[in-house]
C-alpha cells in the first residue's frame, strides 16, 4: 500500500510530506528527550480528513501522533515508534463564542495567541485561562496535558474548563461528548457521565480532538500586580493560604531564581488582580495587603515597589520572561519538571531544587503557579542548557531526571511527564488504577496506534 499516495488523496499534496527536512523537524522538540523521525507528516484541514487518516492508520497499523505546537519539552509529540505525525494546526477556526454562556468552541489548531487576540477584539469582556507558554502553543494542546493558566488559581486546571469535545476515536468513529452530544449548546460536560476524562491527560493515546468547548471568564478592564517578597520559604504556604482566602486574587505565582541579583535569596509571590474600576482595584489591593499584614509588621515580608517598566514586564500576557529563560546560557534551551505538589511542600521542593542544581553544577530557575485556592500548585524545577554544549545538555538532563524522582518523593506528580517519568509514575500508581488505564486504552485503541510508547502500563 502506498501510504503516501493514500495521504495525498486525503489532504492533498500540499499537506503531506515525507521530505527529510520535515521528518527532521518533527522528530524532535526543543527539550532533551529521544528523537525519532516519523515516516510522514500530514496536516489535515477538517475532522473528516482526520477520520480518514485514522481509518488508514488502523487498517495498516501505523502509529499516529497528533500534535499541536509540540512545546511540551517532554517529547510527547515525538513519534518514538515512527508512523504519521498529524499536525493539527491547519484546523484553527474559532467556531463559536457564546457570550452569555461564556464559552467558545474551537478547533485543535487554535493558538493561545489567536484566541487571546480574537476575544480582545470581539469580546473584550471575555478571556480564557492562558498559560505562560509562547503564544504559538495551542489551547487544546495545553488543556489536553492538564495545563494551568492565569485563571487556574480561581478555577483549577485548564482541563477542568472543558464544556464539550468532538473526538475521532482511535477506531475512526467521530464522537461528541458533553451537552453538545444532544444539544446545540456546548455549555458543559455535566450532567452526563464524565466521558471527557478518557481524553484529558492521555497524551493523544485515546483519540484525536477535532473540536473543543472551552469555558471563558470575565475579563475586567484593569489588571494590576503586587509582588510579596519573603526570605523564608517556609512561610510561603501560609502566605498563599492567606492570599487565596481573600478571594481577591486572579493568578498567584511564586518565583525563586539566582538571577537577576534582585531576585536572589528571596521568594517572590506574584499576586495578580483585576477590576473594572480604580475603586475595585484599590479595594482588592487593600484586602490583599491586609491579609499578610502580620508578616509586614514583623518585617518578615513586604510588597515590592514596581517601577512602570518592571510592572509592565510582570503584566505581560503571556509572560515572555518564561520563554527567555531558554537563553540564560545563550544556548537556546531549557527543560523543566513541572511538579504538581501540595502547596505545603513548597519549602521542601525548593530545598531539593537547590540541592539538585548544586550537585549538577547547573543554574536553575523556579516558577510556580497556584491551582485552585491552593489545592495544589505547579512547582517547576527548571534548568537551562546550551544546545551547542553536549556537557551542559547532559547536566540538564540528569538534573531533570533527579527532579522527577524528587517530585515523587515529595508526594507530588510530574506534570506532562516524559516517557521516563511516565514509567516512574506508573510503577508507583495504584495497580488497579494502572490496570484500568490499560483496559481503557485497549478498548479504545485495540491496534495500539495512538501515540504508542506513552502511558504504557507494563504487564
Amino acid at each position, binding site marked *: 500500500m502506498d501510504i503516501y499516495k493514500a495521504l495525498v488523496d486525503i489532504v492533498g499534496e500540499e499537506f503531506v510530506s515525507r521530505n527529510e527536512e520535515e521528518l527532521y523537524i518533527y522528530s524532535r522538540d526543543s527539550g532533551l528527550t529521544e528523537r525519532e523521525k516519523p515516516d510522514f507528516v500530514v496536516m489535515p484541514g477538517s475532522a473528516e480528513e482526520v477520520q480518514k487518516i485514522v481509518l488508514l492508520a488502523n487498517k495498516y497499523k501505523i502509529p499516529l501522533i497528533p500534535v499541536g505546537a509540540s512545546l511540551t519539552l517532554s517529547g510527547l509529540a515525538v513519534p518514538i515508534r515512527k508512523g504519521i505525525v498529524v499536525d493539527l494546526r491547519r484546523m484553527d477556526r474559532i467556531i463559536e463564542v457564546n457570550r452569555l454562556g461564556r464559552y467558545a468552541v474551537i478547533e485543535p489548531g487554535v493558538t493561545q*495567541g489567536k484566541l487571546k487576540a480574537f476575544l480582545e477584539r470581539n469580546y473584550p469582556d471575555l478571556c480564557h485561562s492562558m498559560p505562560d507558554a509562547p503564544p504559538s502553543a495551542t489551547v487544546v494542546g495545553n488543556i489536553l496535558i492538564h495545563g494551568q493558566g492565569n485563571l487556574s488559581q480561581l478555577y483549577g486546571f485548564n482541563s477542568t474548563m472543558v464544556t464539550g469535545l468532538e473526538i475521532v476515536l482511535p477506531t475512526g468513529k467521530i464522537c461528541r461528548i458533553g451537552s453538545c452530544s444532544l444539544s446545540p449548546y456546548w455549555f458543559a460536560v455535566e450532567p452526563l457521565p464524565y466521558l471527557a476524562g478518557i481524553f484529558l491527560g492521555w497524551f493523544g493515546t485515546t483519540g484525536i480532538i477535532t473540536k473543543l468547548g472551552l469555558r471563558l471568564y470575565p475579563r475586567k478592564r484593569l489588571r494590576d500586580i503586587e509582588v510579596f517578597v519573603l526570605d523564608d520559604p517556609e512561610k510561603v504556604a501560609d502566605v498563599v493560604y492567606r492570599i487565596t482566602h481573600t478571594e481577591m486574587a486572579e493568578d498567584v505565582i511564586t518565583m525563586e531564581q539566582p538571577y537577576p541579583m534582585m531576585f536572589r535569596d528571596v521568594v517572590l509571590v506574584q499576586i495578580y488582580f483585576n477590576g473594572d474600576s480604580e475603586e475595585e482595584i484599590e479595594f482588592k489591593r487593600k484586602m490583599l495587603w491586609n491579609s499578610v499584614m502580620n508578616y509586614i509588621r514583623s518585617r518578615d515580608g513586604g510588597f515590592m515597589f514596581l517601577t512602570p517598566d518592571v510592572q509592565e514586564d510582570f503584566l505581560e500576557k503571556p509572560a515572555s520572561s518564561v520563554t527567555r529563560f531558554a537563553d540564560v546560557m545563550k544556548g537556546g534551551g531549557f527543560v523543566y519538571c513541572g511538579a504538581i505538589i501540595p502547596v505545603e511542600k513548597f519549602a521542601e521542593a525548593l530545598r531539593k531544587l537547590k540541592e539538585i542544581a548544586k550537585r549538577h553544577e547547573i543554574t536553575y530557575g523556579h516558577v510556580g503557579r497556584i491551582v485552585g485556592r491552593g489545592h495544589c500548585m505547579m512547582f517547576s524545577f527548571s534548568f537551562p542548557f546550551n544546545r551547542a554544549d553536549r556537557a551542559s545538555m547532559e547536566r540538564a538532563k540528569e538534573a531533570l531526571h533527579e527532579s522527577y524522582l524528587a517530585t515523587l518523593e515529595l508526594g507530588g506528580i510530574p506534570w506532562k511527564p516524559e516517557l521516563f517519568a511516565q514509567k516512574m509514575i506508573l510503577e508507583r500508581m495504584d495497580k488497579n488504577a494502572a490496570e484500568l488505564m490499560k483496559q481503557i486504552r485497549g478498548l479504545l485503541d485495540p491496534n495500539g496506534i495512538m501515540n504508542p510508547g506513552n502511558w504504557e502500563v507494563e504487564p
Partner: protein
Amino acid sequence: MMDIHRCFRCGYCKFPDDFSKYNCPPYARFRFESFSPGGRLWLTRAFLNGEVDFSKHLSEIIFSCTACKNCAENCRMGFKDEIVDWIVSARREILERGLAPPFVRDFLENIRKYGNPWGLPRKQRADWLRAKKYDGDDYLLFLGCECSYEDRGRSMAKNFVEILERAGVSFGILGENECCDGNEVFMLGELGLFQELAERNKKTMSELGVQKVIAISPHAYNAIKSYEGFEVFHYSQILWDLIQSGEIKPGELRKTVTYHDPCFLGRYNGIYEEPREVLNSVPGLRLVEMERNRKNSFCCGGGSGNFVFDLLRGSYSPARERVREAAETGAEIIAVACPACKAMLDDAAKDEGLKDRVAVMDLSEIILRCGIS
C-alpha cells in the same frame, strides 16, 4: 552564525505583536514547521552540522524566506536582530558551496550580465521613460529594476515623474547608467555581487556629484542608504513634503483606502507615517487600517527575489491572504508604496477575483487620480 543554536523554536517569530494571525509569509503559506523561522534556523544548523543533506526542498525552505523581518521584530530573545543575518549567511554558504538552486542562480546571473533579474536588455531600462538625465539636479531619481522593467513598476515611475515635473522639482535619472541597487542580491547571500553593484552605482553617482537620492522602491531605498555618503529619501517622503509645502494640492477623491506597509520601508526603516499623511491629505479620502498594519504588516511575499521566482505562489499565497484582508476593511483601494508589493498584490487581486472590488494603486497614482493643482 555562531549563535544560531540559540533559537528555542518558541514561535513568537511567527506572529505580529497581538498574536492574532500567522505573520511569517512562508509559514502562513506552507504551514509545516520547517517553513517557520525557527524551523528554518534549526534546519540551517543541521545542514551546517552535516545532519541534513542539501536538497531541492531545503533550498525551497531557505529561499522562501522573504526577509520581511517580522521574526526579528517579534522574537523575544537577545539575538533577535541577527535572525535575518543568519538566513542571509546561510544563503551565502549555499552559494559558496555551489549549491544555488536554478531559480536563484538565474536571478543572480541575469543581474550580473544584464543589470536586472529578468535578463532583459540594458537599453530597455529607461528607453521607455521620458525623463531628464541627471545633470547636477537637486535630486537623483533612482528607479530600480522593478520600476525600470516591470509594468506595474513602470507605471509607478511614470506617475511619480509626472508629479515631480508638475511640482517643478529639479531631478534627473541615470537611465542606462543605473544598475541594480543590489538589495535582493544582498538578501540572497551574494555579497560579492552586491559590493560590485554598490561600487558601480556609487561611482556613477559620485562622479555626477549626486548628493540627494529619491528611491521609488523601498528595496532600493534600503540598499542605497547602506552605500553611505548620500542623503536618501523614499518617494512617499517627497510627496508629503510637496503637499506640506503646498507645491502640490491634491483634489478630492471619495474613496475608502487602506495602506499596505512595505517591509523595507516599514520594519526595516521605520517609515510608517509619511505615506499615511499623503493619503490623509486627500479631501474625501477615508483611510482605514488593516488589522495588521505598520510594524505588524503582513508581507506580500515578494521579498528576497520572490517577486521574480515566487516560491510562495498558489491559492494559499501571502499576497492573496493580504488582498482578502484588505477587502475585509471595506477598502476600495489598496494603497502601496513599493513596486514589488504592487505587482504581487495586483496579481493576487486578480487571482482572488477581487479586482473589481479592490484596486491596487500606488501613492502617486492616487494623487494623480484625484487631480493636483
